[in-house]
């Protein structure tokens, strides 16, 4: 039986090669992941290219040098007579020591229903400072001889604001000086100067620069010296910091969007991965199922088939040794005939389970063969009309089985009730589906009239419904009967990739109907 095994194997191999559609689905899902990652990478690259103030706590402030409303001189440092009257005093903590960090805190209010026409602040510290407004860093420097002027017009909206300054003294004298002037549209001016009302925040308060309310434990700052006196003297230099503008950030560069995008990417990648592995698994399952079906087919053919054939032959030989007409001979003949029927039934089972029969062409072949054999012993002449180049596309077991049983039912009905002389069996691909038509020229009947033996029609309908097809019956008394079965291909293999994933299990695990017994 080696030859036969090799043939079956060969068919099986060629079949497996044709089933690469799952592989392409795998590709698609990977592609989705790749595209999303590219989107993300591009977004990252763009947001890094954009000018961002060196601010770790949320990027909303930009040093915009191109603002036409506020032309800035080329030199940011100018010397000359300035009005320093709006500057506060030098203040510090009660103790002064080397390598000391002091945190100053002050809140102020811009009245409602006004806008800020112009707001600037000047600041310096011996030796270093970091300036925060409303929890965001605005600037820092380490040159106590220079005053630094910041334009914060666009950062001040009506409401409460918080100034926070972290000052550092490296050695000896220590001081921090500040002055802010905001001209409002109402004509008023809001001024904030460094004085004793500033609070000193302990170093162990987390997120201190964002606090909007002071705590009771914060003590007041200590007056050191008024401007122009003390160890520091007057200042001739003012460093103009370019006006600060709220950064106009497109939504795709905002933090939350990036987080969402990353999440989507990760989820999509995980989903694609799961999908891909599902597909692989499904494909493997299908392959295993096919191998198993091929094995069973081979076993039935090689073992059972050979033995029953042997039984038939043995029976025939035994008959020859008996005189004609003896009762034992008649019985032997019956045994042989019964064994022949068993072989015929086996042929059909083999056809059903052999995976290499899972094509439209094989289906058409088998149905035609069955119709011819079935109608051979009836007065009905069978005429076949099969599309010449019937496709070899897949036509899986549940579909071909159900359709075969339905067609058999139709043939049976025609043979039993129609009194026809000719029956036409037509198998065609039509549009995106398969059509099988069984048409006889018999006496016909009125389909509207219910009859006890019409169970067959209900059966056909049910079988077709189970596999997503439909069954149409047209008949008129005296005008033959036509049964049309239709299965859309989309039910069989052209399902969209996602439905394949969702429905495949259901389809492959459909319990095979028990093999129909022979009468």
């Amino acid at each position, binding site marked *: *039986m*080696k*030859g*036969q*095994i*090799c*043939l079956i*194997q*060969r068919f099986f*191999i060629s079949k497996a090669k044709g089933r690469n559609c799952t592989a392409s689905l795998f590709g698609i899902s990977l592609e989705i992941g790749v595209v999303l990652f590219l989107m993300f990478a591009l977004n990252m690259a763009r947001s890094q290219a954009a000018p961002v103030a060196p601010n770790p706590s949320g990027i909303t402030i930009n040093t915009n040098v191109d603002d036409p409303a506020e032309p800035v001189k080329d030199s940011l440092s100018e010397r000359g007579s300035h009005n320093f009257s709006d500057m506060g005093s030098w203040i510090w903590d009660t103790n002064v020591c080397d390598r000391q960090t002091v945190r100053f805190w002050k809140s102020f209010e811009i009245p409602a229903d006004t806008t800020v026409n112009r707001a600037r602040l000047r600041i310096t510290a011996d030796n270093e400072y970091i300036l925060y407004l409303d929890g965001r860093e605005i600037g820092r420097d380490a040159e106590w001889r220079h005053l630094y002027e910041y334009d914060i017009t666009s950062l001040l909206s009506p409401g409460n604001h918080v100034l926070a300054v972290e000052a550092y003294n490296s050695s000896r004298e220590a001081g921090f000086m500040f002055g802010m002037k905001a001209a409002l549209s109402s004509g008023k001016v809001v001024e904030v100067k460094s004085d004793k009302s500033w609070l000193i925040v302990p170093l162990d308060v987390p997120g201190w620069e964002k606090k909007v309310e002071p705590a009771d434990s914060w003590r007041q700052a200590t007056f050191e010296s008024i401007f122009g006196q003390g160890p520091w003297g007057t200042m001739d230099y003012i460093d103009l910091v370019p006006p600060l503008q709220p950064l106009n950030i497109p939504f795709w560069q905002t933090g939350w969007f990036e987080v969402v995008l990353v999440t989507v990417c990760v989820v999509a990648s995980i989903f694609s991965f799961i999908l891909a592995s599902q597909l692989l698994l499904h494909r493997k399952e299908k392959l295993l199922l096919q191998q198993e079906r091929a094995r069973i087919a081979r076993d039935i*053919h090689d073992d059972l*088939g*050979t033995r029953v*054939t*042997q039984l*038939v*032959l*043995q029976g*025939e*030989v035994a008959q*020859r040794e008996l005189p004609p007409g003896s009762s034992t001979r008649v019985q032997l003949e019956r045994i042989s005939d019964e*064994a*022949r029927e068993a*072989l015929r039934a*086996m*042929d059909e089972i*083999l056809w059903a389970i052999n995976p290499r029969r899972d094509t439209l062409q094989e289906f058409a*072949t088998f149905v*035609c*063969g069955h*119709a*011819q054999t079935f109608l051979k012993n009836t007065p009905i*002449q*069978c*005429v*076949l*009309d*099969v599309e*010449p*180049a019937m496709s070899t596309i897949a036509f899986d077991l549940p579909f071909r089985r159900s359709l075969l049983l339905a067609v058999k039912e139709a043939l049976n009905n025609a043979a039993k009730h129609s009194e026809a002389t000719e029956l036409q*069996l037509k198998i065609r691909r039509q549009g995106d589906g398969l059509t099988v038509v069984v048409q006889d020229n018999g006496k016909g009947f009125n389909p509207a009239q219910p009859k006890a033996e019409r169970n067959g029609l209900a059966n056909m309908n049910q079988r077709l419904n189970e596999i997503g097809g439909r069954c149409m019956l047209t008949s008129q008394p005296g005008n033959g009967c036509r049964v049309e079965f239709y299965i859309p291909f989309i039910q069989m293999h052209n399902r969209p990739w996602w439905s394949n994933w969702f429905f495949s299990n259901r389809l492959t695990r459909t319990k095979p109907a028990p093999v129909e017994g022979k009468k």
Partner: protein
Amino acid sequence: MSKPAKASPPFKISAKSPLKIALVEDQPKVRDNWSQLINSFPDLSCICICKTGEEALRLIPEAKPDAVLMDIFLPRMSGIECTSRLKALVPEVRIIILTAMNDEELVFMALEAGADGYLLKRTKPADLRAALLDVLNGGAPMTSEIARRVVESFRLKAKTRDESLRLSAREEQILLLLAKGHSNKMIADNLEISVDTVCHHLKHVFEKMHVSSRTEAVVRYMASKTQAVN
């Protein structure tokens, strides 16, 4: 040469000159039963029994039987390959393929390889004799499915074949009617020719098929065998 092969004279069988049959079958029980069945007919005699395809290639050319009954599944060399090789050695011998199960695909391959007909092993002995005579007289039984495949295979190869090996219009017409499920009798009525003429045409179809595929078939089945071994 418009006709690829000469028409063989019809076989006449009598008990005096029984039809010589050779049997190629690997299973001993089936072999014994078949030879007994054949010999039980007075006008048939089993003159040569081979266990393998290799043995058949060695013994049959010398035994010169009228017909060879060849099991399709043989160990090592398959019945199809053996048919193809045997036809190359002894073109005039008639080869009938025996199959346990009805598998028209395999049967068609065997016919293409040079077989003249096929029988199911479960065929009743009475039908066996009739079927044998049919085949020997050229009227190999052709089911609609086989006819369809024959037309298809000729169409596929039409471009590479030389003129004399293509189907004539009439032959194709007959095959297409067969494929529609018409019997030889109906075809004869339909085309207003005799049943014998229909059989004659079919015989030519087989001969054309054999001539054209003899060499390529050997190569093909050799290849498939190597594949399976690997």
